[in-house]
């Protein structure tokens, strides 16, 4: 066995250039695989983080009937006694915060903004004391301050502010229908601007105090949602089950959804993107496989007489197969090593520096919740997979040409060339 390995590697030195070219092709293929995978992981984990920290939280509690009509943001199917539930959750060690989200028409006046205007918006009423235990807006404030309970104030996302030319101190009016169908108008003043890393939020965020909305829209103390934050290590399905049990006897029919249910558009997109890149990678692998196969074909072909000799001398087919497969595996090994090294180097750049896609993200909704930097992530699993794949695939690819040569009868082999 030792001899076979030694022979295989010795044979690699016979055509160094061909070996190097093939190994290089494998290396490039693997490097691309590592890079793409790293970027996808990086982008996906950042998106998930930005979703959970700023948009969906980890788990959300709503009235069961709310979920059906959630696009309409109805106010009449809300969670009753939200603070009791919040208290219950706190006791079990969960961070929780109630919110009211409602759709409104935001009216801008020419004396503040230079021109009259209006636009449909989504407004989020938060409990200023609890909200930042679940969401992470505290770190994102870039101007002014957060809203305070009982005040007609609002905090706006920085891209939103840029788009409409809003500044701290501007007044806007929200016109909407309250719980019961009556029309209501609320004048609010911008007191703070946050730069939220979640682009979808940064483009649309309007935060106002919970108690004000409760009063103006006659919510009677209800909340349209209760958000729960979990650390990244905690298992979401477990927590969800636990919470479902916990709240089983509140007398309300509640829907408890995890973040991926709430962000279905994102999840679908991420899957599609993965599918698409898998196809591209598959093509790259095919090309690398063709390279190896050709190299092995050439190698075997040039050595048919030698092959005949080995068979005549009594070496069995299996041993000969193994020799060539190890030889191919050797090329794969070299390619894998180089590929992984290249992949690691590129990844260092991608993880530490990343690629700035701000110009694309600013105005286009790409689905991923990334504001500007597309960064990679480290995955030992990917590196190991790439390495093994490169080596094993090369070995397997050598199997067929060898088998074909072994089907030739020995005298023909010996007569060859």
């Amino acid at each position, binding site marked *: 066995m030792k001899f076979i390995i030694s022979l295989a590697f010795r044979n690699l030195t016979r055509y160094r250039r061909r070996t190097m070219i093939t190994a290089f092709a494998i290396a490039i293929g693997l490097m691309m695989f590592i890079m793409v995978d790293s970027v996808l992981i990086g982008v996906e984990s950042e998106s998930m983080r930005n979703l959970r920290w700023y948009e969906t939280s980890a788990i959300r509690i709503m009235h069961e009937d709310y979920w059906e009509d959630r696009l309409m943001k109805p106010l009449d199917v809300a969670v009753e006694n939200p603070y009791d539930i919040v208290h219950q959750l706190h006791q079990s060690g969960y961070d929780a915060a109630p919110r009211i989200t409602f759709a*409104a028409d935001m009216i801008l006046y020419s004396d503040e903004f230079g*021109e009259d205007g209006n636009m449909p918006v989504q407004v989020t009423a938060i409990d200023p004391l609890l909200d930042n235990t679940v969401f992470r807006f505290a770190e994102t404030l870039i101007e002014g301050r957060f809203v305070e309970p009982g005040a007609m104030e609002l905090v706006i996302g920085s891209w939103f502010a840029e788009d409409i030319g809003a500044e701290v101190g501007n007044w806007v009016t929200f016109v909407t229908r309250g719980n019961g169908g009556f029309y209501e108008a609320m004048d609010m003043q911008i007191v703070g601007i946050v730069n939220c890393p979640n682009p979808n939020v940064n483009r649309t965020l309007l935060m106002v105090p919970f108690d004000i909305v409760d009063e103006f829209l006659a919510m009677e103390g209800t909340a349209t949602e209760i958000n729960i934050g979990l650390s990244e290590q905690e298992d979401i399905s477990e927590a969800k089950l636990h919470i479902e049990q916990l709240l089983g006897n509140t007398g309300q029919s509640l829907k408890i959804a995890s973040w991926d249910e709430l962000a279905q558009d994102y999840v679908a997109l991420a899957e599609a993107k993965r*599918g698409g890149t898998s196809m591209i990678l598959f093509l790259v692998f095919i090309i690398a496989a063709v390279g190896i196969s050709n190299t092995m074909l050439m190698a075997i072909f040039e050595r048919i007489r030698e092959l005949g000799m080995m068979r005549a001398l009594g070496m069995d087919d299996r041993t000969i197969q193994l020799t060539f497969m190890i030889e191919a595996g050797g090329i794969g090994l070299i390619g894998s090593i180089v590929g992984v090294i290249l992949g690691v180097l590129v990844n260092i750049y991608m993880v530490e520096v990343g690629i700035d896609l701000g110009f694309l993200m600013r105005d286009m909704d790409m689905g991923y919740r990334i504001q500007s930097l597309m960064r990679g992530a480290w995955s030992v699993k990917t590196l190991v997979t790439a390495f093994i794949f490169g080596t094993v695939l090369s070995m397997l690819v050598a199997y067929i040409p060898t088998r074909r040569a072994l089907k030739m009868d020995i005298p023909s082999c010996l007569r060859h060339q």
Partner: protein
Amino acid sequence: MAMKLIHIAFRNIRRNLRRSILSGTAIAVAAMSIVFLFALVQGMRDDMAGNLATYYTGEVRIRNQSYEEYERYNPVHLTVNWPQIDKTLSSMEGITDYVPRIQFASSFYINGGNHPAVGIGADFAREASFQDLEAVVKEGRIPRAGENEMLIGAVLARDLHIDIGDRITIMSTTATRGSNAITLEVVGLAAFPVGALNSQFFWAPLDRVQYFLRMDNEVQQVLVTVENDERETADLIKDRLEQAGGEPLEVQAYNDISMMYGFLEIAQYIYYVIGIFFLVLGSTVIINTTMMVIYERMREIGTMQALGMHGNELTRLFFLEGAIISAIGAFVGVLIGTIMIVYLGQVGLDFTDALSGIDMEISSVLYPKFNIWTTIIVYIYSVGVSAATTLIPSRRASKIEPVEALRYV
């Protein structure tokens, strides 16, 4: 002598059919992928252009001069004088068609909640020649002028559980900066090729929208399709309208309008880069295969040299063989690619799921676009690369002394 060489070349190819097919196939696959990829990109570009023109901007768009600056505010009060524009355009040359539109932000008030939607007030009679609305109506019909009716995007209807026959109350800010509401009956569901149009928009008769938004006989924009160069015609229109009196207007050609289009041009360059990358990768396959083929035939080289053929002639022979295989292989590849393009150009590639989360003016179903020039270029390139790669090893092979090559036996 050249004639004979070609015969020998063909015969050699036929003699080693399997090997020839192998390298020819590699070239075919590479050529096919490249041709297809470029067609897809071209399709995307044309598609975006088409969508912009038909649904969003026309080829030339006329709006209130201040509209762009405050576009984000949905300033419905910044209008343009439709009768005047109508009169001016109807007397101009080089104008294919034009339609008035009012695009406005509104909220649907349903049950206990509300949902934003974008309304388009349109003159459906005029629209008939501008775009094929009939084809887009999935269920029901187009609203009638003078009636409180709407045509709603199918996805929006689905998301809000709205169906034909439902009466929806819509609220919006008017041109006099007050609020107003109107109830419209859903008479049709539309399935536009652009996803965004189906999930955010509804269409209503122009006269009712004008009434509802207190716009008299003004409109928000006029979309024009033209015969000649869009930018030139836009300038022409602007001049004419100014001459006719009235306020100065914003008149823009579509390729100056949307930032999206600028992005597409960037995207196109990215795709060309990807295309070239595949070209290179495909080329390595070709190079790899042809190199292998040459090495296999070292013995033949010796024989032929011993028979009196050497040096340049030998090189030319191998080159010829390589060129023939490349020409045939690339042709087959390009042919299959073209067939795929033409077929999918009719049927379309459904990217609906993949694009559902993205907000771009590209259709969910893409149609690869056949371009004879791109196809020819890809063909020439494939043949060129593969023929060239036979050159190097065959030059080297022909430099071998016959005696050595035979001893190789």
